[in-house]
């Protein structure tokens, strides 16, 4: 039997990797991918907690997270396409026109 803590540590490591990706990478697509890693890390702890408690709520909320992730990916990629059309670049630091 795997202890609950090991699932949570895997989840924490994946979440930290996703956070590091958001801060370190200079590419909008990789940043979106890092957000997906973070969402998946949280899904893993939801499912592990749900199995630990022996009910289905953990799996149900995982479905809602997946739906939100799909919506977020669609809108995020549409934004990336619109920004790329504007500046011909995927570097987040290229979009500074809202800075004063």
């Amino acid at each position: 039997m795997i202890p609950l803590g090991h699932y949570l540590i895997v989840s924490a490591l994946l979440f930290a990797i996703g956070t590091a990706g958001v801060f370190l990478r200079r590419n909008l697509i990789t940043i979106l991918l890092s957000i997906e890693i973070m969402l998946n890390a949280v899904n893993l702890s939801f499912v592990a907690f749900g199995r630990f408690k022996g009910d289905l709520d953990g799996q149900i909320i995982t479905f809602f997270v997946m739906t939100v992730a799909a919506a977020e990916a669609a809108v995020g990629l549409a934004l990336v396409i619109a920004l790329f059309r504007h500046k011909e670049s995927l570097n987040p630091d290229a979009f500074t026109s809202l800075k004063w």
Partner: protein
Amino acid sequence: MAETVTFYLLAGLAIVASVLVIGQRNPMYSVLLLIASFAALAGLYIQLDAYFVAVAQIIIYAGAIMVLFLFVVMLLNAPQEDAAEWDRLHPLRRPGVARFGATLAVLLVVQLVWALTRIAEYDAAVGGQAAGAAVGSVREMGRVLFQRHGFAFEATSILILVAMVGAVVLARKEGPDA
């Protein structure tokens, strides 16, 4: 025993693939590696008796969302991360600042793991509890989803509609001929 080996194999695969995702300069490889990471996570879900979530993970994440990402990467045809002159001279890229940020990130991981190892349920085995059959059954899941979470389910459909309209509006070409 086999269960333990499978767990560490899948967990290691998920973590290594995720590290490589953010270590790649080519977004194409990043997307493909992320699919491997999601497949490993689906294996972990199967080990947790969440069969339907595992299948949904493969179909929705590895199938739909990652194909969408691949499509955009190919469409934009910008394989390499561009490191322009002004970007390399960016104040946040100075070595001292970068080292400070890396220290903070490592500190966050250490703190998280330390906090997790101190919770009371750390060594409680997952999957030993009763109701193992009910947790894996799709019938039971459908009942809970539509009876107890009906409102959230309907709200989800509005969310998807809004996202769909938003994506079309954002990605549309501007101008009189649009």
